[in-house]
């Protein structure tokens, strides 16, 4: 049984890790580097990720390219929830890793996208070079190849959003009671 599943895993992971379809999601200047990565000079198509989907329902990967503000946060969480399992997140740029230059005093910026959704690969830089984004995609592919179908339930449990969607007329995301609030940094 174990042998069959591991053989199945190998084929399954080989297929899906070589066709990671990202979502077209760019909120600021990192998006320019993402566009550049998909263009002919750097050519993300070499890694099977050239199909930027306009709809989250067809995407496997969300590259959060750019600052996430409180106004944008509910939209990001909703897009993430609409993506089919298995789904992956690359936090691209300093703003989505820790808040970046808005970390100390900003009133409107979310301090790192990992407060909202679980992140697979952190990619620092302001903005990162296209080579760095390609490296992040390769790291993600390596991670995908280590996964097994047996752990799927555990995986889905770990990939829930970390905040609650607002209720009623509110537009502010609320803390989720079930999951501990992430506290790290200085």
């Amino acid at each position, binding site marked *: 049984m174990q042998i069959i599943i591991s053989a199945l895993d190998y084929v399954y992971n080989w297929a899906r890790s070589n066709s990671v379809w990202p979502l077209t999601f760019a909120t600021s200047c990192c998006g320019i580097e993402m566009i550049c990565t998909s263009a002919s000079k750097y050519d993300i198509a070499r890694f099977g990720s050239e199909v930027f989907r306009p709809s989250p329902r067809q995407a496997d990967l969300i590259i959060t390219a750019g600052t996430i503000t*409180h*106004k944008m946060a509910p939209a990001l969480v909703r897009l993430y929830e609409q993506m089919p399992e298995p789904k992956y997140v690359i936090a691209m740029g300093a703003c989505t890793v820790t808040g970046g230059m808005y*970390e*100390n005093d900003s*009133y*409107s910026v*979310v*301090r790192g996208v990992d*407060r909202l959704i679980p992140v697979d690969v952190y990619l620092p830089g302001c903005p990162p070079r296209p080579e760095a984004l390609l490296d992040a995609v390769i790291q993600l592919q390596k991670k995908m190849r280590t996964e097994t179908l047996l752990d799927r339930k555990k995986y889905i449990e770990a990939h829930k959003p*970390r*905040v609650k969607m607002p209720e009623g*007329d*509110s*537009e*502010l*995301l*609320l*803390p*989720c009671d079930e999951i501990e*609030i*992430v*506290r790290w*940094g*200085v």
Partner: protein
Amino acid sequence: MSFYEFLNNHGIDYSQEQEASGGVVLSIKKEDLLACCEILKTDRLFNYDMLLSVTGMDCRTHFEILYDLYSTRSHSRLSLKIKTDRVNPNVESLYSLYSSADWHERECFDLLGIEFVNHPNLERILLPKDWIGHPLRKDYNQEDERLCWNKR
């Protein structure tokens, strides 16, 4: 006719004038704003027919609002500066003259809490609807318990 003669002829009460790099800056009274803009917009010679931006400033004792006007006929710029109180700040909306005032005034209301009287849809534009406080005020302190997941 020079510009200052024009202002005096129409009885516009400007208390201070200074030449900035972009053009003239006039300080006028808050109550005269709408009438003054109407004269400046309808005049055939100067014809300031475009509102470029509405900027609010917190000067601790009072708020200042800067209106940047542009004339597509004479290609000149003019800035009008008004003052309003810090407690219950309010000023007449310019939406009836310039429709571009709509979003600029909403932004000013959102970030500084200045009320624009007779504005058609004065609500927050950049921040979430149920945000507490106005962030660009000097005494703003973010103490919203709902955002505890965002604390450092």
